């Protein structure tokens, strides 16, 4: 693809663009879903195309095509320029990009076993066995999932960048859904919404050992049907990894996107309460809250070599001892706050223009184990595995539901509780954090369904977390 990329750059230069880049992307995805012992989805999907982004008269234009051929590339470059010229009809300030050293390099996800080389029969055997192990009344849906993605990208720009990457992702999981007397309860492993995902090979799915967890998942799903409703009130809450990862995602990851802060998403996903005056000033959380946006952490679903502007992957401090110190930015937005790009521009496919997307937004570990934390809690709740989520368009008021909660009494886990929910306001909530577990409990969770942008884009992002405790949380909002 490199010669086609260079050809596209030449056409962009001939068209007189102030800046231009092209991405050729070839993707492959294998998706398997087994339900009640039967294969419901088994697809092999391939996609190949390119996208051209240009700056003309200080404004952006983007066009893409699935027809990878020289004549089509030239047509698409001209179309992108025409679109940019139309954008300029409303331009106020011309777009200026942060200076970066043009990169020329390669990156490949490290892995042990290519997930596409593992025989289908091997995957199906595991998935069908795990699904069957969860079947039987009152479980109505015993599901197991596997997914592998490979993305090969070639990026070139009129600045002289030329970058080639191969990203490999693997993941999966299991879920049991039980229904009785108008109640429906779900338990999942290792996370809800089809499992957990990483930039890794098939070894990652093997290490999950989903079959070994199937009986427990089934048992807890059934037990929840007769568990008491989680009572309402102000409580101490410990969030386990999967739920805490989504809490980080919604109430830290999205508000620190500088395009949202600058209003670029205001009509759809919304903007952010983290206005520019809060940088280096806001006490976002307690001193135990330390967060980085790290595209370099091995295995993270948001790990890569270069972003889709050709900027190298970085580890950017976001919250340091509770203080808000950094945004995720791009070449366009970083100069507006006097900084350099944090390398977080990514597009979900060749047909989409890059946006600022989370990389791996990680809550750094402190000390102790989850058992230590439970033992240190006199009266509270342990909530696990997300079931429901919603947050306002400035990322302040949130409400989450989890699959399960356990009562904590005098340092010990007690009875199972169903339909737990909690709600709060972002800075108050993070300032109420009085414990974060240590490195032995720290784990990466992949979020493969992060939506943003119009036309819609689904990003694959990650969150490393260790369980954490929060005081005085409003629990239970349902009648």
């Amino acid at each position, binding site marked *: 693809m490199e010669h086609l990329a260079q050809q596209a750059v030449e056409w962009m230069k001939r068209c007189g663009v102030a800046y231009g880049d092209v991405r050729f992307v070839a993707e492959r995805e294998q998706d398997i879903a087994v339900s009640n012992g039967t294969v419901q989805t088994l697809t092999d999907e391939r996609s190949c195309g390119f996208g051209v982004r240009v700056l003309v008269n200080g404004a952006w234009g983007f066009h893409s095509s699935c027809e990878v051929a020289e004549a089509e590339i030239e047509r698409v470059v001209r179309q992108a320029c025409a679109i940019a010229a139309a954008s300029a009809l409303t331009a106020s300030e011309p777009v200026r990009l942060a200076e970066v050293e043009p990169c020329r390099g390669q990156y490949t996800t490290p892995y042990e076993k290519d997930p596409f080389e593992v025989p289908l029969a091997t995957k199906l055997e595991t998935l069908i066995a795990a699904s069957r192990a969860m079947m039987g009344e009152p479980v109505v849906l015993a599901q197991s999932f596997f997914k592998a993605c490979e993305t090969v990208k070639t990026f070139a720009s009129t600045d002289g960048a030329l970058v080639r990457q191969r990203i490999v992702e693997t993941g999966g999981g299991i879920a049991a859904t039980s229904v009785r007397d108008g109640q429906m309860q779900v338990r999942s492993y290792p996370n809800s919404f089809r499992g957990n995902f990483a930039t890794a090979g098939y070894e990652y799915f093997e290490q999950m050992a989903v079959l070994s967890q199937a009986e427990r998942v089934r048992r807890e799903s059934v037990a929840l049907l007769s568990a008491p409703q989680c009572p309402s009130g102000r409580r101490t809450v410990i969030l386990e990894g999967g739920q805490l990862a989504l809490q980080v995602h919604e109430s830290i990851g999205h508000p620190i996107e500088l395009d949202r802060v600058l209003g670029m998403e205001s009509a759809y996903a919304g903007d952010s309460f983290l206005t520019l005056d809060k940088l280096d000033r806001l006490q976002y959380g307690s001193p135990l809250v330390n967060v980085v946006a790290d595209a370099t952490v091995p295995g993270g679903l948001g790990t890569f070599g270069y972003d889709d502007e050709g900027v190298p992957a970085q580890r950017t401090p976001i919250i340091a001892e509770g203080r808000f110190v950094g945004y995720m930015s791009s070449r366009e937005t970083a100069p507006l706050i006097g900084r350099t790009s944090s390398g977080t521009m990514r597009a979900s496919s060749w047909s989409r223009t890059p946006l600022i997307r989370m990389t791996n937004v990680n809550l750094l570990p402190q000390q102790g184990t989850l058992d230590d934390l439970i033992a240190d809690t006199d009266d509270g709740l342990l909530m696990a595995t997300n079931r*429901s989520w919603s947050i306002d368009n400035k990322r302040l008021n949130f409400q989450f539901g989890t699959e399960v909660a356990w009562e904590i009494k005098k340092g010990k886990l007690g009875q199972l509780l169903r339909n737990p929910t909690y709600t709060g306001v972002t800075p108050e909530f993070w300032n109420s954090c009085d414990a974060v577990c240590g490195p032995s409990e720290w784990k990466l969770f992949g979020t493969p369904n992060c939506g943003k942008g119009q036309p819609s884009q689904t990003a694959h992002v990650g969150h490393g977390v260790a369980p954490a405790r929060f005081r005085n949380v409003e629990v239970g909002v349902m009648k």
Partner: protein
Amino acid sequence: MTTDHLNKDYLLGLAESILALSEADQTEVVLMTGEDYLTRFSKNHIHQNVGSRHASVTIRAVTGKQIGVAQAESLDEASLRDTLAKAQEIAGLCPPVEDFKGLPKPGRIRPIEAFDEATARTSPEERARIVVELVTAAKRRRGEAAGLVQTQAGAMAVANSRGVRAYHRMTGAQFQSVVTCGDGSGYAESQGTALGDLDVRGVIRDGVGKAARSRKPQPIEAGDYDVVLEPAAVGSLVDMLGYSGFGAKAFQEGRSFMSGKIGQKVTGDAITIVDNAHDARQKGLPFDFEGVPRKRVKLIDRGVAAGVVYDSYLAGREAGRRASTGHALPPKYASYGAMPMNLLVSGGDQSLRSLIAGTERGLLVTRFHYVNFVEPVRAVLTGMTRDGTFWIENGKIAHPVRNLRFTESVIAAFERCDGLSRMRRRVEGGAVCPAMRIRGFRFSGKTEF
């Protein structure tokens, strides 16, 4: 742009060539192609402006009861051959799906005229001019405009080895705006098959006017309030019912609020919801992703559970030889089951003004944000208000208020619906909805803006 790639003979010709090559017992081909353009603006200027030409082929190969699906985003000959080979290979490896009854046979498809040549050829300048018109109006009120103008043209063909041959082409256009005036914001939208269908002036008038009236919102506590929901707010609730409750898979598995309740009252008398691709306000696909003609399906009839939507697999596994209603999703999403795509909520005999006039104390809600399930079986949802929330006092809009979070069972809330507008609008998400008044709607939280 040219529209050659949308041509019927071209797409069905490709489908025939794949079927001729297939060695499977049964084969299905779904071909899609099109061009999408979207002009996005914020803070009074266009900041993202994109176009895309796309094409895809999805092949389902069936050997006995073994099923394989492969997809590629390319229609060149090599891709088509590779995709067919992959689908056949997967079918050979996949265990049999015992309750699979075979690919559907052809049915009579009633065509839907939903293609506008001018929309397919819309230039970037035409989209930008609409933005300029809105920005000019917003600036007059010291406002800032954000939103999008979108035009699309596409075609779809479905063919299978049992004789299904289905083709449809369509265009679409959309104009959405969120205007911000100080600390107030206002939302307005218009959708149609053609760019010329859009109510551009109405969107500008409503968006700018509502933003100006939303300045200085007053704090409000959470609690139970009578509400008048505008069509966009109603649409986001109804979409979620469609996702969780109106498909046969959730229904059969006892996960729907409709499960085991056909013929029984599930919500208020005022509520009738149907799915109908042929309605003039919908102009949906006339067939589904299996090429089965879309039927009009009554889902809730004056509060009584009336039916759910099926694809051929879900219809085949239900006792009583039920037929598909023509609501299959693309094969790669088969595990989600069938879904309604063209929902319509019946209107009433009131105007938006009279719904407000009949509210002594309550809230007018323009739209909801980030609506999600809390408990699917009871259809308990949560979400936030945004872009135009007003306090109603003695039947009149008194002042704007800060946004609130609701947590409420939608079917229980619909029981308390005591008024619907005659006016209905197709809203984001695709449902056609009236404005609706609900007594005692539960707001569980508040935010700071």
